[in-house]
Every structure is written in structure tokens, then in C-alpha cells.
């Protein structure tokens, strides 16, 4: 039954101006990156950084704003004979599919045209995973508070944390424990940040990974193998599932 809600949400969002602007932005950035850079690898790296900055931000903020604006509409859905879990899942799939669609249209087409081989697919896949993760986190932020301003504030903070603050903290830890062999622990720490996880995933596919130094070698040892890659992918999946499932559980018990 939730497919029905998803279908209508999807078509509603496709007409949304913010999503149109997001698609356009991704398209302009990716086309120009690939046209300016002759070196394919450099282009992938530049685009990777752009994607890892914009996609999480747009996904989490747009999700939060859309959900807050739909509060009365969600009430109306609740007054219909539908179970709550299905409404929440329908909203999630609707938002996710429209953002995924925007990403594929904006960044996906140039990536497929310009990037040869598996790296293009991996870049595409991580972009999609990052979208899903931050939509999921957006659902969690929205359910945590009824207040729109606070909810959007939390989502901006989360984005800031994963994009900037987390790396700062990791650097701080690295300097503090520079005397100790913490390379293996670093692999574990990365799992705590989906953006870093995605970044390492891509960088290891490129030649530049040699520049990561000894830690890079450990990363390569771990994520470079089939098992490591599978674990990395699994971790990204967990990042999608866990926040959403928590929010769904809270939604089912919530007073609206």
C-alpha cells in the first residue's frame, strides 16, 4: 500500500523548485568539471568533493523542510485507514526516489559519459548511498522535535558535523596519539562517518591513494579487498537503515 503514497509524493516533489535547482546545480558542476579537467582521475576527485559537500546538505535539509511542511498532510493520511509504518515508509521512499532521480539526472549522466570503467559506477553508487543516508538522517531529525526551526537546526548541525567537525576531531586524535600505532583504529573510526567512508571508498579506486601514506596502506589493505569493500558497503547500508528505523519506531508511537 505504501507504494501509492510514494508515487504521489514523488510526482509532487519532481515539480518542486528546490529539486529542480539541485538537479541543475549538479548538472552544471559535473559537466564543467569534466570539460575543464583533461585528467579523468582529477575530474572524479573534484566531482567527488563537490558531491560529498552538496548531496548530504540538500538531502537532509530538503527532507526536513518537506516533512515539516507536510505535517497537516501527514495528519490527513493518518485519518485514513492506513497503518502508520506504511505512511512513514511511503514518505521515505517518495523523498528518496525523487532525490535519487535528481542526482541521476544531474550528476549521473555526465559520470556515465565521462568516467570509464567501474570507478564511474562506484562514484554513482556512493552518491546514491550518501543521498539515502542523509534522507534517513533527515527523517530522524524531524521526528526528534516538533519545532520546525529546531529540527532544521539539528539537520544543519548534523551535516556540519559529518562534513567538517568530524574530520577536525579525527585530526586532533591523530596528533594526540601520533606516538601510538593507531592506524588500525582509524579504520574503525571512519565507519562512524558515512561521508568519510564514501570518500575512502572512491579514493582507494584511484591511483592517488598512494598519497594517503601508511594509514592509506592500511585502508587499502582493508577496504581494497573484496571482504573489506563488502563490509564498507554494509556499513553504508546500516547508515541508511538505522536512523530510518529509529524514526519509524518513534513515529508509530508519536502523538500528532
Amino acid at each position, binding site marked *: *500500500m505504501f507504494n*501509492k*503514497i510514494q508515487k*504521489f*509524493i514523488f*510526482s*509532487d*516533489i519532481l*515539480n*518542486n523548485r528546490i529539486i529542480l535547482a539541485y538537479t541543475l546545480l549538479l548538472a552544471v558542476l559535473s559537466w564543467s568539471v569534466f570539460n575543464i579537467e583533461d585528467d579523468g582521475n582529477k575530474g572524479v576527485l573534484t566531482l567527488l568533493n563537490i558531491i560529498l559537500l552538496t548531496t548530504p546538505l540538500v538531502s537532509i535539509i530538503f527532507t526536513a523542510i518537506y516533512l515539516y*511542511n*507536510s*505535517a*497537516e*498532510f501527514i*495528519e*490527513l*493520511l*493518518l*485519518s*485514513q*485507514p*492506513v*497503518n*502508520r509504518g506504511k505512511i512513514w515508509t511511503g514518505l521515505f521512499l517518495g523523498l528518496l526516489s525523487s532525490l535519487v532521480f535528481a542526482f541521476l539526472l544531474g550528476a549521473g549522466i555526465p559520470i556515465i559519459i565521462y568516467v570509464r570503467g567501474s570507478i564511474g559506477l562506484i562514484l554513482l553508487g556512493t552518491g546514491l548511498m550518501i543521498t539515502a543516508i542523509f534522507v534517513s538522517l533527515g527523517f530522524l531529525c524531524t521526528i526528534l522535535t516538533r519545532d520546525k526551526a529546531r529540527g532544521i537546526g539539528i539537520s544543519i548541525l548534523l551535516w556540519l558535523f559529518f562534513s567538517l567537525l568530524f574530520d577536525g576531531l579525527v585530526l586532533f586524535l591523530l596528533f594526540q596519539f601520533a606516538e601510538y600505532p593507531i592506524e588500525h583504529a582509524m579504520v574503525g573510526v571512519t565507519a562512524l562517518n558515512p561521508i568519510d567512508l564514501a570518500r575512502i571508498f572512491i579514493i582507494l579506486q584511484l591511483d592517488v591513494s598512494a598519497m594517503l601514506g601508511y594509514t592509506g596502506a592500511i585502508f587499502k589493505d582493508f577496504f581494497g579487498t573484496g571482504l573489506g569493500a563488502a563490509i564498507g558497503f554494509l556499513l553504508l547500508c546500516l547508515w541508511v537503515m538505522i536512523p530510518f528505523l529509529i524514526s519509524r519506531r518513534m513515529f508509530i*508511537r508519536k*502523538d*500528532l
Partner: protein
Amino acid sequence: MIEIQNVSKNFGKLEVLKHIDLTCEAGQCIALIGPNGCGKTTLIKCILGMVIPTEGNIRFKGKDISNDYAYRHDIGYMPQVGRYPDNMTIGQVFDMIRDIRSVKETLDEELVEKFALRDMREKKMRTLSGGTVQKVSASLSFLFTPEVLILDEPTAGLDPLASEILKEKIIREKGKGKLVLITSHLLSELDDLVTHIIMMQEGEIRFFMPVTELKNATHTDSLAKAITHILKRDDV
């Protein structure tokens, strides 16, 4: 039809509903009145399963409604403020709700027709005025011929002509033996509509009685006068 047994609801320390007991039967048209913040909307939301009571239980046609959602097939709800996804058209909203309900039986499109919504099918929700959105909400609540109608401030924001159409519709549905639950502040509007009155105050039910009884007891001929009579008597 709806039995509310000892229902309480607390939001934190705030007691919004205090041990409410209530039984509503088919054929009744009940006005739920009371000052702002007395718990009317919360009570309605409890019946709709949007708010989960802290204590007590609610039965719909004899079945407990907690952890159930199928019972809402028989309820049409018109919210106080309706808001719909901005970019959906009126037609899409109707299609979606029909899709969600997956109804096959014939629809009651009387209000859609009388409010002339059919000619506006292609209009997007964000371009509509508040009154037109209310018309959409009203038409939706009657569309699936539900046995119970729950209308939260139905005539607020409607123009006189539209609210007259809605009132006539309510009277007709009442005649078909449906249970209608209305909250409103406009007592004069309710006069020729309702058969029973529930007066709520600070989360408790002050009284629940037939309108005729109320008018007899207070020796008045209109609802507004009867209620003011009671409120004045309180002050003394």
C-alpha cells in the same frame, strides 16, 4: 458506536483529558463545544488514533481501536486546517486518497459537484485560497460514504453559501442514520444541525445531553441562549 472509557491524556505534566467517559450512537449529531484548549481536538484525535491515550480505551463498533487502523474505513475526517502537498492538483489529491483507501464502491461526489471542484481539478493546491482548501477537505471527508463523520470547525473559512451547502449535507447525512461529531465555536450555526451537545471544560465533560432537554431545562429556544444561560449560572 463509539465508546470512550475512562480516557486520560497527559502531555508531560499537562493533563489535557481527565477520565473521559462517553458513548456516541448512530443517528446522533453531536456538537462538541467548550473554550479554547479544553481538549476538544485532543479527544477527536484520540478517536482517530492520532493521539494515543495515556490511560483508558476507545471502542469503535465494539472493537478496541489501539493497534488497529482498519476501523478508519468508516470514518470521514475534516481537519481544522487542511494543508496538502504544494504541487499536487486537486484531482491528484482525490485520486491519492481514493488510491490509499482502495475503494471500489460508488463515491458520494455531491459536495465535489456543489462546490464546483470538478472544474478546478487541474489547479495546484498551493494556488488555492484557504476557503477552497476547506472545500477540498470537506468533500474528501464525505467522499467515501463513511458511517461516522468527524468535522473539526467545518464552517470556519467557508463563505456563507458554501457553509450553507455543507450544513444541508450534514443534515442529510444525519437523516441517513450516521453519527456526526462537530466541533465549533459558532453556536448559532449549530442550532438546526445538532441533536446532542457535549460541553467540555478543562479536559472534563461538563454535560452531555440532547438539545431539546437542554432547551427545556434552561427555558430558552436557541442553543446560544441556553449555553450562555448555563455559563452565567456558573458565575453566580
